[in-house]
């Protein structure tokens, strides 16, 4: 089974405020507020860490869920976020460029 890679879409603006991640599509100004799971996924989506590793290291310890079940849910979530053009997903690593001085998971 192929692995899935996820990366933050550079065409969005993002800010985390009091643990609440808000993302605006720069294309059509739609505002999204991410829940806790989506926030973890967004922050870890560096384009090079496979989704199963993100689930194993970041999501399972946070929510005490079975890895297989968590991975299934994370894949569904990742595809949903990709549908909103918040995340990019691929079966290959996705090169990412961050602006100098940019905070992880935030874009300016």
């Amino acid at each position, binding site marked *: 089974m192929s692995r899935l890679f996820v990366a933050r879409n550079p*065409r969005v*603006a993002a*800010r985390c*405020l*009091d643990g*609440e991640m*808000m993302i*605006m*599509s*720069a*294309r*059509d*100004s739609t*505002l999204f*507020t991410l829940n806790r799971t989506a926030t973890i996924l967004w922050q870890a989506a560096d384009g090079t860490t496979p989704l199963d590793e993100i689930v194993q290291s970041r999501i399972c310890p946070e929510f005490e869920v079975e890895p297989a079940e968590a991975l299934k849910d994370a894949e569904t979530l990742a595809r949903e976020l990709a549908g909103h053009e918040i995340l990019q997903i691929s079966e290959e690593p996705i090169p990412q460029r961050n602006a100098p001085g940019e905070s992880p998971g935030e*874009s*300016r």
Partner: protein
Amino acid sequence: MPELTAEVERFSLVIAIGGMPIRVNTADPDFLALLEGRYSGFLGSSENAEVEFEVELVRPGFADPAAEVRVTHRMGRWSLTRGDFRAEWEPASRRGWIRQSANPYSIDAVLRIVHSLVLARQGGFLLHSASALRNGKAFLFAGVSGAGKTTISRLAPPDATLLTDEISYIRRHDAGYVAFGTPFTGELAKLGENVSAPLAALYLLAQGPENRIDPVAPGEAARSLLANVLFFAEDEELVRAAFHSAFEFVSRVPVSRLTFVPDARVWELIR
């Protein structure tokens, strides 16, 4: 055979909102008079207008002013269109044109859009909110239609100066913000005063059984602010700028929920 030429006399006025003078030129003296009445209190005499528009008046046709506004940027030029007008503006040359019929609503929309674009680059914005000045401080009252912007404006005591009952003008200044009066009116149909003051608070309006002020979590404050910012441009850089400006704003200006019963006592809380 002598060349036939026609010299068309141009009339001009300067509309200064938020300290930004915009010159409008027209060949129609009646339209000029209409604008002088519409923007009375916001007319300037500056020779150094930041933007200059040539208005070309066309015969009224079927045009829907409620049609969607499109604001796009290409090759250094902004293009603004709605059912009732077309306009272009080139920031580098500070010049542009507007094609519309002789009515005050179309040019009003163009002015709002141009101000929103200029402010977005400077960390400011136009906000769907009433605003007033009291004790040397400005207060914003934001909310969707029906939340009470007109009501709270109507209830303002004599020592409060109304800046607008509909669209507030917010400019970044030093470590804070300044609110300016605007001629952009809502149901009250009363022009704001052309004055400004440092911004003291943003209140999110709600009508309820008692007058009270409650704190608002930063996330909700940012979301509510973004929901009320007037922004039209289909431009990624400017969308990003507006987004981050909203977060900057909520980190510097207190945002609270103001629940009020519709009588003048609510103003006892606003000082």
